[in-house]
């Protein structure tokens, strides 16, 4: 048993707090009938996940999680909700009677599978620090090891840009 007032004990406490934030945010996101509140829960969940990444010595991923998921994705969702339906909250469509048990069953199965995977796998010991995380390292990684992924992502982004341009153009009259 680790004492609470050591570095490990405090780190464990912080870890538990981060997990609580993540799970709590997720529960709000799923459970709230009001859409903006659900998105706020989602944002809290993302912040918790970012905390987990930081806890795992990956500050870069943590910061990216904040920047992209909280700063871009959640804001876009709230924005879309606000433009579509600024007024009354809408009832989520009626659920069928089997929805809850089946959902719980699938969730439990997934949780069990992931947990077993995590426990049974022989994980290689993580290096204390993979690299210095400098801009040069990221650049090298992007155009050597992950060159293919990088190209594919840029292709997806290009398509997204063209798609949004087409959509925006269609909304405009012939002027």
């Amino acid at each position, binding site marked *: 048993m680790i004492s609470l007032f050591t570095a490990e004990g405090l780190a464990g406490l912080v870890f538990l707090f981060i997990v609580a934030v993540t799970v709590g945010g997720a529960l709000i996101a799923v459970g709230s009938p*009001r859409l*903006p*509140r659900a998105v*706020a829960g989602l*944002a809290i969940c993302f912040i918790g996940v970012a905390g987990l990444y930081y806890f795992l010595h990956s*500050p*870069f991923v943590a*910061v*990216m999680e*904040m*920047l992209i998921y*909280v*700063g*871009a994705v*959640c*804001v876009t969702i*709230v*924005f879309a909700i*606000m*433009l579509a339906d*600024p007024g009354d909250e809408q009832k989520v469509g009626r659920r069928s009677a089997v929805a809850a048990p089946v959902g719980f069953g699938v969730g439990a199965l997934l949780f069990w599978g992931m947990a077993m995977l995590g426990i049974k796998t022989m994980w290689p010991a993580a290096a204390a620090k993979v690299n*210095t*995380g*400098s*801009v*040069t390292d990221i650049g090298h990684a992007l155009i050597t090891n992950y060159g293919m992924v990088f190209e594919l992502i840029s292709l997806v982004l290009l398509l997204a840009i063209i798609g949004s341009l087409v959509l925006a153009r269609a909304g405009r009259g012939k002027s």
Partner: protein
Amino acid sequence: MTLTEPWRVLAFLVGIIAFVALNAAYLVWLERKVAGHIQGRIGPKEVGPFGLLQPLADGIKLMSKQLLVPKGVDPLLFKVAPLLVLVPAVMSFVTIPFGENLVARNIDIGLLMIFAFASVNVMGLLLGGWGSNNKYAVISAARAVSQNVAYEIPMLITVVTMIMLTSTMNLNEMVIQQGGGILNWHFFANPLMPFAFLIFFVCALAETNRAPFDLGEAESELIAGFHTEYSGMGFGVFFMGEYANIIIGCSLAVILFLGGWQSPFEFLSDQGLWGVFWFLAKVYFLIFCVMWIRWTYPRTTLWGLLNLSWKILIPISLLILLLTGAMIKVWPLITGAS
């Protein structure tokens, strides 16, 4: 003087919060003084010498006011929104180097971290506007977001240019690279940098919702924008968040372009407290410019604002990015240097 780690963290925590709160209070005073002098008045003068105790009186007034939660609002989001604006701003101070050794956490990806937390700010405005259940607040929140999204792009492109130039995201390292006099500042690194600085500064103005880009709280159309329904300290916290964001924007501009805590001339010291002095002097000069602009230019229209970003700032910043990349990589190949 060295402190052990927990005490150092505690000292920085208290120091940063005090810095933010004091600045919020006295920047309001400064703003009123500047506005007064620009308009041929003298600003606050009754409370204390030069009205210096005015912020204190304002603070007491705000704190003693009732916190109204109107009917029909979303009580949780309504209460959380001001915090969502203030807390990320305070977090961003963690990695800002006030002096050579005066930085709470010298994070390798500090620049990225500041932008990560700055992006949460928009969420606060949105939820506050929506949670108020008020038409004006919702319109204002929608405006604030479209504005923030539009101006984040040229700002980030400019920042990427600076990262290419410095090849680091550690703010203190960036400042150290600019040592040795005013001509080594990144502002003079190449002929494009003054334009990059201008773009960054305009974007910082827009990101912090300052006039002439304060479409989010255009009082002639929207009463007070997203904080229409807030009373007392709820409004006060929004305001503190706004000023904290202005300080961060100006600090970033100083760190990226104007040499951070480095002194402008080599014969002037920037060791110890002198570094803090130079840093704060530059930051406050920029803040003064922000106020100067606010009281000089009228508010733009929403279309003008969005056009400025999408049609002017983004193409120019992309061009600067390309040309800077060319200068860094292609120019040495042509001239055969290095």
